């Protein structure tokens, strides 16, 4: 297996089909994301963004081709690969009955951290994300914005080299969105590669350097955001989006 350390993500001739859902499928998909990039993945509802995210994180297994993270193939070296990345799913992916500290303790241990590492990272993250005052309260009683921050904290507890974020700011207020985006920028500055999906295209335009737009399981455009806008003679990501995917409703 050829190791290409300069690439954070490498998708090679990837094919995938749900056994019970023919609507979303990929065939011979190729995509590369360099280390340290802030990469945005966009597309209308049902385009396959979440499926692609699940394939890259190993939640789903590819039928053909392969996906490599930092040169290591997902699905075959899960134990090693899974330590390299963090995942912030669109759904609240934690235990509502537990407090932020208890959630971070559990997910930190499962991410491979020891007791001291968990304690240090928990204090650090709760402080950065403004959750220190509610550290011992059950997350189930939190507001949507606070839950989003807990969701993010869990995803980065083990200092991953690649961070996958599936609509990390959906349903939050302006303050929380700013706090999350600023924190993601800082993470990226410290070397973490960000792979990000969102329907907030203004926010995405502000955060991402490189993008890929997918529809019906195919990449319809990709590259540096400025180059892509210039290539399609568009001034904003939203215009480009409508231009490439149309105005019809998507389910």
């Amino acid at each position: 297996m050829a190791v290409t350390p300069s690439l954070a993500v490498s998708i090679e001739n990837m094919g995938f089909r749900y056994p019970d859902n023919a609507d979303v499928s990929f065939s011979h998909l190729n995509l590369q994301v360099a280390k340290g990039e802030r990469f945005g993945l966009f597309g209308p509802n049902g385009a396959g963004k979440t499926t692609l995210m699940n394939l890259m994180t190993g939640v789903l297994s590819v039928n053909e081709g392969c996906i490599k993270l930092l040169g290591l193939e997902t699905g075959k070296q899960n134990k090693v690969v899974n330590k390299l990345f963090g995942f912030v799913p669109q759904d609240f992916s934690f235990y509502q009955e537990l407090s932020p500290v208890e959630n971070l303790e559990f997910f930190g241990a499962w991410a491979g951290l020891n007791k001291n590492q968990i304690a240090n990272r928990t204090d650090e993250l709760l402080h950065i994300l403004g959750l220190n005052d509610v550290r011992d309260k059950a997350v189930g009683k939190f507001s949507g914005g606070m839950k989003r921050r807990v969701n993010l904290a869990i995803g980065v507890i083990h200092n991953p080299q690649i961070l996958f974020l599936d609509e990390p700011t959906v349903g939050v207020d302006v303050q929380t969105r700013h706090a999350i985006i600023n924190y993601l920028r800082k993470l990226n500055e410290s070397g973490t590669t960000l792979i990000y999906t969102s329907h907030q295209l203004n926010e995405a335009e502000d955060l991402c350097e490189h993008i890929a737009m997918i529809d019906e399981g195919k990449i319809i455009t990709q590259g540096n955001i400025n180059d892509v806008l210039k290539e399609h003679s568009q001034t904003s990501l939203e215009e480009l989006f409508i231009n490439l995917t149309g105005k019809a409703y998507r389910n």
Partner: protein
Amino acid sequence: MFKLWISIKKDVRILLRDKVGISLMFVMPIILVVVVTSIQNSTFELVNKNKLPIIICNTDTGKSSAQLITAIDKIGMFKVTQIAKESANAITDNMHNQDALLGIVIPANFSAEVNTKAKNASDKAMAAFSGQADTVKNVEKKAIAGIDPLNLYYNPVLQESLRFSIQGAIRSALQLVQTRQTLRTLYYSSNEKELPQSLENEMLNSNTTINMLPVSKDGTRTTPNSSQHNVPAWTIFAMFFIIMSLGGIVVKEKVSGSFIRLKTLPTNYMVGLLSKQITYLCVTMLQAVVIFSMGLWLFPYIGLPALNFPADVFAVFIVTLVCGWCAVSYSICVGVFAESQEQSNGFGAVSIVILACIGGLMVPSFAMQGIAKTMANFSPMHWCLQAYYTLFLEGGKLKDVLNNIASLFIITLIIQFITYLGLKRKNLI
């Protein structure tokens, strides 16, 4: 080990904050054990300690019918109330009015028929003593003449087994009256004087007493009571009742986003399942401790017989451990295959009632026939119940329940394997 320890901490925290789940796992089974034991104890006392109310309408005026009533009263299992002979046609109304479970109408010619039968038997015996074979044949022909039946009315709530016992007791009273009359007639025919009372008593009374002794493996003579039957049985049911909490938790974790995140972490989900098994196994052990403790110390205070705990405590521990593990494995299995908490709770509740039925918790498996008896072998509750009964009722030791433990263990391994296949099929591991 650190991951497992943290996972157990997480599961315990979630469990302790699930107030409804805890009440389902502890409060409901405790109520169930107390209620079922109380009801069965009162039934037990009704049959064994209280007398069954019986109304007797004697339309006969002879001595034999009076002797029959005395004989029925002396049996000791009936509370006899006599009503006027004019009420014979309204015996069922009287039973309803006086809450009697049984009613007897003694026919008007009862004493005359007893006398006739006694005379025939006496004549036959006398003929036989004197060697007149032809006369014996004639006597036999006369004796076949019809005797009016004694009608025994019963309330349908009486179980068949109890009705047969009652019928047997009444028949023995009838037999006593008939035999006494035959003896008296025969004695008079032979000696032309009355049978002396002392001789009559000697001939009629049996000097052989019957001792009822429970069979046990350790030679002790502890009389089984409703607590000995119910506490172990409903403890098993309580252990399987954790499906209402654990099955739902597995489904909730599976369908929530947390499961997706768990799949992306460098830890096998089997650690999570192992943690749940350890946590909930402790819960089942705690359930058993609580329910057994109630049987030992609380029951005597609320008027129920105390539970006699087996001498082989280690055997009880092992049986409880394996039964608890089976209950936990079954709950996780249902949780893995269920698509929603509603499915898990609905299927879980119904399935454990079915397993309890075929396992002998509701109807003793020895009373089952044919396919039901075969099906009992597939219920883990059956093997656990047999093991508990061997320990609690028969004073058995660990070696006596090893075959039950082995069967339970095999069923548990099969359930675990099915769970593994389910996890694989659903791409959860």
